[in-house]
């Protein structure tokens, strides 16, 4: 799996750093909890910038090479920030046979971005995911935590419109 590495400069706040240090402090005696720490770090920062991986490596006393190895191995760890409303289209089997590919392609057209990319205004990012387990509603996508099911390509513009209005860019 190829990961897109962010070129956006790191902008962590002291508050975020304090939260991360608290997480590290509670797990640092157990190296098997590395992934747990990284998951918590990702929920603090939204992604895992290189600077954060360095902090984790130092704090957990695990070589940076190992931390980087883990962050690039698992699909869940993002090395670049997601949009304010991350969109993930399920390309699991049940969705695929019911036309998810057409949904995914139409979203790329509508947003003008490819998979794994973020719109220039930072509002939407797009990715494919493998099965969110809502196969009965196939094809499905998630925008943030909201699940949209029984999709057809012509429904997408309307759904995006809602979020654009929310952001005042419609």
């Amino acid at each position, binding site marked *: *799996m190829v990961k897109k590495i962010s070129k956006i400069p790191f902008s962590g706040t002291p508050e975020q750093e304090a939260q991360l240090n608290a997480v590290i402090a509670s797990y640092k005696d157990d*190296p*098997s*909890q*590395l*992934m*747990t720490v*990284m*998951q918590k770090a990702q929920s603090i920062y939204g992604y895992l910038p290189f600077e954060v991986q360095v902090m984790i490596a130092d704090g957990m006393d695990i070589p940076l090479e*190992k931390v980087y*190895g*883990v962050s690039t*191995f*698992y*699909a*869940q*760890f993002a090395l670049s920030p997601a949009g304010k409303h991350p969109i993930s289209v*399920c*390309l*699991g*089997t*049940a969705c*695929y*046979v*019911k036309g998810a590919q*057409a949904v995914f392609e139409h979203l790329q057209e509508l947003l003008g971005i490819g998979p794994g990319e973020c719109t220039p205004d930072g509002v939407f990012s797009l990715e494919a*995911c*493998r*099965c*969110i*387990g*809502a*196969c*009965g*509603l*196939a094809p*499905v996508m998630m925008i943030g935590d909201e*699940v949209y*099911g029984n999709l057809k*390509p*012509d429904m997408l513009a309307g759904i995006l419109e809602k979020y654009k209005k929310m952001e005042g860019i419609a």
Partner: protein
Amino acid sequence: MTVQELNARREAAKKSFIPGEGSVALRVVVGYATCGIAAGARPVLETLRKEVAALGKTDILIEETGCIGMCQYEPIVEVYAPGQEKVTYVKMDAQKALTVAHKHLANGQVVQEYTIGAATGEARDGEVLPLSKTAFYRKQKRVALRNCGVIDPENLDQYLAMDGYQALAKALTAMQPADVIQTMKDSGLRGRGGGGFPTGTKWSFTAAQPPGKKYVVCNADEGDPGAFMDRSVLEGDPHAVVEAMALCGYATGSDEGYVYVRAEYPIAVLHLEKAIKDAKAAGLLGEDIFGTGFSFDLHVRLGAGAFVCGEETALMTSIEGKRGEPRPRPPYPAIKGLFGKPTTENNVETFANVPQIILNGAEWFASVGTERSKGTKVFALGGKIKNTGLVEIPMGTTLREIIEEIGGGIPNGKKFKAAQTGGPSGGCIPESLIDTPIDYDNLTAIGSMMGSGGLIVMDEDNCMVDIARFFLDFTVDESCGKCTPCRIGTKRMMEILDKITEGKAEEKDLQKLQELAAHIKENSLCGLGQTAPNPVLATMKAFPDEYLAHVKYKKCPAGVCKALLNYFIIAEKCKGCTLCKRNCPVGAIDGTVKNPHTIDTSKCIKCGACMAACKFGAIIKK
């Protein structure tokens, strides 16, 4: 907690929520698993709560429950009354909930038109058909899913009321560890994660290791896209897995367990963590359970999106906090597993069967199923089928029964083409084999596999080459890269399939594809690589003509592979409305008002916009 206290708490628990047993007159449950919530269960639940509060009826209990199994009909509301079969309302919304509250809950009038029988058209006029009598349910038998969609999964007492933790009490007080293993062996339970290894035998390997630190691991990294059985069990009945793991710990001599769950299943994680916390607080996990001296502790670890971590050695490497790469076997996990200690690993559905087997006996379990596959199997039914959902059927049920009776057949009058089982490791079952009774050995014999339970139905509009390419794309993406046959071999297979779907392949490429597949199967390190070529091999075997059509005649019979298609306008059907011309993004359509239009295939980018726009069905692709 002592066994006496457990029994007393069970009796008290029954009174707390079962209508007629205590002060509860009616119990209303709303399907509140992932698909229910996605379909809109939240406003339904809120409306019911609000209305019942407004009615001032304190004897009506409104609760959330797990997956009821009929995803197609979510949101689902069920009403339990004393001495009657439950009433199942389907495709609910806030408005319908309001009606149900006012008519049924307030006045006992069932709103027949919202019930399952009315929705499926099976009920004769005005009749309220119970769920158990519908075609969807009739042939099912619920063992692993027995509590899913019945109890409130976050409520330990409700699990206790359904004889929860009785199996653990029975094993700890009346059985030796060897008896537990013997019962598991006699039951004939085989691994439900797909491999089908006999569970009792697996346990006996770990038990035979010298005493010392041992682990129990539950594989809840359900990676097969299109399968959601394990998610449903963890969301709907998490205590069953907790109890089973403690039983496994007792049988194998282990005092600590890990559940490795996909991070994509937030509700499952939440329910499982609560179940563990509640069980610990009640003394059903932890030190000296039931005063027998047996101790067992359980932890949850989250996966991070790597399909290979469903492979047992890779999963253990991941729990250790490393890249989830598989380890060569031997040594097998029973000798050297998690943290280098003897480890027993089973999947969620396997564990969900265990308490029932201990409680009801091996014979009870073995009375269901076929000669070499005992019990039931849960399938996640999806794809081109009317009733998508979660079904649990006795082993030996035929695919035809699942698809045509339980699943309700193929929608839109289309023709069945194939069923896919086993996900990216499995194969396709064509129509000629649809009467095969489902069990481990039969499915393997016809070139597919049981797999974890994803069952995706495909109709005539699905191209089998494209489906094979889809699965290979998945394995190429998920190959961890540790061994060469899998990392590079799958990629090369993918390139050949790309050539086929683009119409650039020759017949000798099919030969090459098969050779490559054989090498990958033989030489890969773990199950992911060893089974990666299966979808390709199975489709080549079952649908040779379709491959030949792509390669020799450069045609895609199902009309899926874009490079091999052209769009045409049927002059007789075209009314000359100009809608297609206006929708074409590249100006490839020519024609004037009220005259038949034509498509310039050299300009056409095959986007399909014209076909979607045409109101007269005048545009075809071939």
